[in-house]
């Protein structure tokens, strides 16, 4: 391997540059107690990843949507709808674990597919379709929950959720890895593998890269779009289930503004909003970057206003880092 190709290989993983830089900064600026670096404690790292797991799951779905050149603003509201849905079904309707979770996932899938159909078949810009979807999902969540958070209590009695559901919020592998993190990891790895090996992924990138050319090449454009929005809806619903179990309630106001965080994770991860270019691995790096940044600012008790300034600057710097190109 020549020196050039080493550099080139390095730059293929450019999307993690920003993450690495932020992690190094976090270690340097981390507060210490009794000589221990608080940031790198196992507990804290688990917290960091757990805090980004919901945004991360959503962002994986969002990556697919952005790869085909679309956008999905409804994911935060869908998270809220799914959180409410799982709480209401398990607690108020006393459905079992599996039926509730399955129904909620199906709702996410169908909702996403409908949005995909509206943009693919009628040709309305996905921004508009999903902005409307956001309002509709939020309205449905409010109506379903009577406008109030639905608390989740566990047990076998009536109006209690099955204990199996609580498991989703636990920690595993010796109490170290929270299940939400595990779910995020599984989703991310599955998405990365899927994008590497599936024929569908070629179609997806083609649709985002040049829709007309994709259609003329025989790519089923409408089907790809509907499928991608359906996947995104499904993952948002999954994140909503995880959200409900972590917070012990489903509230119709859950997930407000999460769409921007998810999009930010995707874009910081190097995926182009124009479509056709990007990766799930980058998105995971982007989500972790945001998580580490939030964590280190909080650990240092930075004033929340100053936090806003620092976050803004770090995000721009991380993005600028990705514009570097190897000088071959």
């Amino acid at each position: 391997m020549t020196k050039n190709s080493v550099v080139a290989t390095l730059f293929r993983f450019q999307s993690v540059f920003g993450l690495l830089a932020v992690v190094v900064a976090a270690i340097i600026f981390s507060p210490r107690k009794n000589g221990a670096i608080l940031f790198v404690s196992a507990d804290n790292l688990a917290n960091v990843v757990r805090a980004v797991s919901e945004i991360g799951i959503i962002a994986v779905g969002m990556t697919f949507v952005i790869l085909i050149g679309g956008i999905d603003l409804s994911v935060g509201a869908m998270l809220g709808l799914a959180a409410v849905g799982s709480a209401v079904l398990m607690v108020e309707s006393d459905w079992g674990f599996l039926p509730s979770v399955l129904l909620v996932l199906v709702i996410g899938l169908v909702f996403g597919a409908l949005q995909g159909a509206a943009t693919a078949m009628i040709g309305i810009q996905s921004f508009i379709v999903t902005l409307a979807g956001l309002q509709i999902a939020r309205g449905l969540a409010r109506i379903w929950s009577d406008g109030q958070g639905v608390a989740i209590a566990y047990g076998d009695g009536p109006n209690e959720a099955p204990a199996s559901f609580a498991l989703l919020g636990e920690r595993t592998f010796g109490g170290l890895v929270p299940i939400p993190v595990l779910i995020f990891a599984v989703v991310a790895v599955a998405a990365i593998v899927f994008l590497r090996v599936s024929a569908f992924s070629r179609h997806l990138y083609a649709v985002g890269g040049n829709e007309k050319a994709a259609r003329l090449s025989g790519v089923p454009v409408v089907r790809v779009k509907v499928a991608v929005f359906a996947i995104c809806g499904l993952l948002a619903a999954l994140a909503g289930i995880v959200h409900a179990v972590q917070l012990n309630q489903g509230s119709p106001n859950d997930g407000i503004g999460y769409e921007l965080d998810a999009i930010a994770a995707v874009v910081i991860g190097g995926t182009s909003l124009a479509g056709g270019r990007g990766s799930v691995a980058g998105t995971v790096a982007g989500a972790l970057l945001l998580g580490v940044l939030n964590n280190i600012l909080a650990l240092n008790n930075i004033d929340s206003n100053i936090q806003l300034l620092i976050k803004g600057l770090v995000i721009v710097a991380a993005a600028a880092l990705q514009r570097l190109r190897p000088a071959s």
Partner: protein
Amino acid sequence: GCGTTSERTGGSPSDGAAKSCKGADGKYTIGMSQANVAEPYRQRMDDDIRAAAKEVPQFDVKFADAAQDNAKQVADVENYITQQIDLLIISPNEAKPLTAVVKKAFDKGIPVIVLDRKVEGDAYTGFIGGDNVQIGSEAGKYVAEQLLPDGGNIVELKGLAGATPQAERHQGFADAIKANPKLKIIAAADGDWLREKGQSQMDALLKANPAIDVVYAHNDPMAEGAYLAAKAAGREKSIKFIGIDALPIPSGGIKAVEQGRLSATFTYPTNGKEAVAAARKLLIDCAAVPKSQVLPTRLIDKSNAAQTYARENPAG
């Protein structure tokens, strides 16, 4: 203070308090987890805590803002636990979602003072707050007895749909005005706690309802917004506006009452001072604090506005 309804939970002051108490020689880091500083009421709560803590040289208070997101507030508390703070003050965004993490802190021996909204169970050291149902009820009584004893038409501007205080302030009010059957809530709209939303909702309500006597807003900013809308329509004289919160700041409700825009507002104490006092008791005096202090609301009207403002915000 007088009128405080307090209840003590049995004998043992929570074990947490005892452990972290190092008396007056100690240095204490206190973590304050705020639900959302974008609400003026909560910003004021932080400011009150900051001011009160300045008087206690042993205290170093850190602040975190969850920006109205339960999940973020959970993370904020977890980060405080990682930092091994000596005491936690939390003003929860919602009760249920924060119960677990507050319990986690409490179980680690960190005394917890809960402000404004309770968490569930009893894994906290002390709660200090107001009673939103009671505030709504006081407002209702005020309308029924003082403003419209002969009956009339009321418009209600509600807070954000889905928020607990919104439901409670509505409930207390609705129950209280039942005493006077000639009172009618002829319309209600969501103002999401926001001044501009109160204004634009009121624009339409004024249009649709030629006879409005009182506007009951779930907080002062919405009441002010409604007033501005009525003023634009030339109807501000024929309508009375009441709000809730009564913050002693220049853009707050007390000033609005003093200057005649609002007829009345009801204090919803931030309890920042009380929280720091409780922390002092726990950490420096090694004493117990009541499990629950509910501070009553007070009516602020033209008669006591200027005086109250001068007392609570001597700086101006």
